[in-house]
């Protein structure tokens, strides 16, 4: 059970039964705990907290851990950072406790069991030991069983546990293990020692952040909250200029840009664009963001914009061509990549594709469409295309081959008429059959129905001159299951 402030004033709190609570407050309103919604809200809050540090991790069901290494100076020091966090959380109406220390364990203890709402331990290992000593042992993040044993030994403060010789702690746990197995007792003792070492900064404790920190980031705090699109665009322009300078100094460009907008009420919005090749031209990137910025809802005001760049790589800088008349036969790849970026920014990352050759004799497997990444495929290599004079291939391949009803004069002869999409068509001419065997490397595997059977393909023309590519999949005597079936795979010109 969780209770809000008004209920807590009546003495209602966690661990109480609903009937007891009702007895104390007749007008009590209650709702089932929605853990999924709570978790989602915590993640959203965590994303918002990335305004102070890119490394934010979830801690249990109700906590967040921030690694502020190298970030405190942005807010004017650790104390100012905590004051800022607290003020903004309070502004968003979120009750909170903050702890700040050189180790995650110590910060956790401060946030959970320290007497004040906002506490901090300054300094290294000695300061940690001194600062943690008076705190209850519950601040060590222990299992209830271990905590119960510590209390039985009279060890209620972290300092008492820390002063005990390590071997003696394990021995005491084992000797008290009347009701717990010896192995369990040893594991509990190990856990206590581990948590103690982590809290005192003797062991490094990694965080599992919500998102990877970006390779480059630029921040733009807004003293006056941004309320409209024009403000966001202006802010983006400034951030892009600064980022471009940094990237230019390193001779680099980035393939992903993400603009995060932090609102005062604890909501974040992020817009991401991707490019085909590493870029850094502010005008180009700003244009890609273009219409997407409208997706950011400024709400009651955005007070921080952060632009992150990822996929950073060395950027080829070629001198601009003198003019199209002198450009020669080579495509202008930079302009093409810029075009692909603009198209993909509006239509989706998979919308702009080029077709790469693939080694297979089955037409539907012989090519692979992949998003354009600044490189045009080379089909001139030997083997990419069938030699001239080989059997024709349809201009268009259906996304999914469709079944057709076929009447043939002979069971394994060419089709005489067929029905496709409910229209009957009379075949006037047919070229074929061209037999295509299954891919031999799949022969030993379990057959995939018709996919792994030989097929006879015909290029047929109907009475109106339209041309189709029909295949009879499976042979009558191949001993691989059902009778052959006809499908249409493509259309000719």
């Amino acid at each position, binding site marked *: 059970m969780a209770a809000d402030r008004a209920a807590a004033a009546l003495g209602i709190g966690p661990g109480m039964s609903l009937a007891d609570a009702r007895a104390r407050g007749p007008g009590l309103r209650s709702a089932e705990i929605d853990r999924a919604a709570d978790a989602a809200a915590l993640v959203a809050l965590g994303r918002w907290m990335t305004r102070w540090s890119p490394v934010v991790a979830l801690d249990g069901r109700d906590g967040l851990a921030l690694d502020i290494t190298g970030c405190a100076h942005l807010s004017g020091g650790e104390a100012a950072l905590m004051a800022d966090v607290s003020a903004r959380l309070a502004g968003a109406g979120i009750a909170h406790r903050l702890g700040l220390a050189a180790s995650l364990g110590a910060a956790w203890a401060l946030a959970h069991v320290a007497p004040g709402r906002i506490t901090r331990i300054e300094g290294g290992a000695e300061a940690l030991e001194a600062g943690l000593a008076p705190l209850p042992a519950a601040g060590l993040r222990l299992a209830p069983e271990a905590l119960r044993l510590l209390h039985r030994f009279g060890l209620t403060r972290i300092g008492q546990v820390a002063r005990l010789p390590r071997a003696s702690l394990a021995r005491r746990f084992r000797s008290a293990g009347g009701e717990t197995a010896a192995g369990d007792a040893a594991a509990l003792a190990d856990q206590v020692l581990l948590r103690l070492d982590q809290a005192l900064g003797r062991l490094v404790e990694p965080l599992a952040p919500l998102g990877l920190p970006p390779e480059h980031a630029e921040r733009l705090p807004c003293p006056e909250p941004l309320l409209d699109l024009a403000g966001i665009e202006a802010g983006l322009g400034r951030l892009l200029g600064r980022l471009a300078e940094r990237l230019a100094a390193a001779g680099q460009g980035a393939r992903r840009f993400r603009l995060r907008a932090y609102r005062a009420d604890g909501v974040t919005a992020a817009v991401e664009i991707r490019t085909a090749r590493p870029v850094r031209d502010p005008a180009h990137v700003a244009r890609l963001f273009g219409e997407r910025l409208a997706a950011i809802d400024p709400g009651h005001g955005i007070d921080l914009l952060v632009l992150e760049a990822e996929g950073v790589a060395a950027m080829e800088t070629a001198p601009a061509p003198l003019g199209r008349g002198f450009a020669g*036969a080579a495509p202008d790849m930079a302009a093409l990549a810029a075009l692909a970026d603009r198209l993909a920014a509006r239509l989706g990352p998979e*919308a702009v594709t080029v077709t790469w050759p693939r080694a297979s004799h089955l037409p539907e497997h012989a090519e692979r469409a992949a998003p354009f990444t600044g490189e045009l495929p080379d089909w001139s290599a030997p083997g990419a295309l069938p030699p001239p004079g080989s059997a024709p291939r349809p201009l268009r391949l259906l996304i999914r081959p469709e079944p057709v009803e076929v009447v043939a004069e002979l069971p394994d002869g060419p089709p005489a008429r067929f029905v496709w999409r409910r229209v009957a068509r009379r075949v006037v001419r047919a070229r074929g059959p061209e037999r295509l065997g299954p891919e031999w490397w799949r022969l030993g595997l379990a057959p995939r129905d018709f996919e792994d059977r030989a097929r006879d393909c015909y290029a047929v*023309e109907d009475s109106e001159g339209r*041309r189709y590519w029909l295949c009879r999949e499976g042979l009558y005597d191949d001993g691989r299951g059902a009778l052959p079936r006809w499908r249409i795979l493509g259309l000719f*010109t």
Partner: protein
Amino acid sequence: MESHRTLTRPLRPAAAAVLDPALVSALAGGAARAARLALAGPAVPEGDVPALAAGLGRSGLHELVEARFGDMGAVAGFALAVLAGTAERAAAGPLVWIASAAAMRAHGRLSARGLAAAGGDPGRLLSVAVARPVDGLWAVEEALRSGAVAAVAAELPEAGFTATRRLSLAVAAAGVPALLLLPHDRAGASAAASRWRVAAAPSAPDPHDRLAPGAARWRVTVVRARAAPWAAGRSCELEVGDATHALRVVDRLADRPAAARAGPAGRGLPALAGGSEEALRRRA
């Protein structure tokens, strides 16, 4: 029209550099008459519909409409045939092929091997899939303005007058041809330089295999052409040469219906074709 706000943008210097200065000033000044003259393309001698068809891939914005439902395969083939004649430009940039999701579902996607067979280079193909028609029009305009492409073809369900007008201006500024491939129910006004109806036509038998279809043929009809008002309503039958991929005329007598033609020996099928085919098939 949020997506069309680029209309008022001034011409890009890179694009303007290759244009006649008088035309640029006329375009930038909004002189519609000069723009129309520029879109008309090179003059074609009166009565020469095939030459008009062969000029489709050179410049300007043109509409290719399927004659009846199911002719879209022929329309795409004809579009590639007229674009294949401009190989020297293809070296300088890719062909951008824009297709709406509905068109892809109905007629499939371009296959690299089929494209190569039609005289194109699959390595110079940039495919763009769009969900909405308005995105498709926008993509055509972006591609034209990029200055990096050799030609643009778009399979779209519709294109209004305003949209084609915008695209006409973009085509004129870019000096790159654009073809709109539209379904059979296309009607209404258009600012394109010409509109054609394209139908598949029965082919002659393959010279090496009498039962097999020969080179693809199309019956193309001019619905309207700004540069050649005489051509409206005329049609001709075209096919591609096997080796050269160049368009050639099947029938010089343009305005007669296909059924009235008596094909020269060895090319058209005699009346008994069906019977002899059956006999051949039985023998095989």
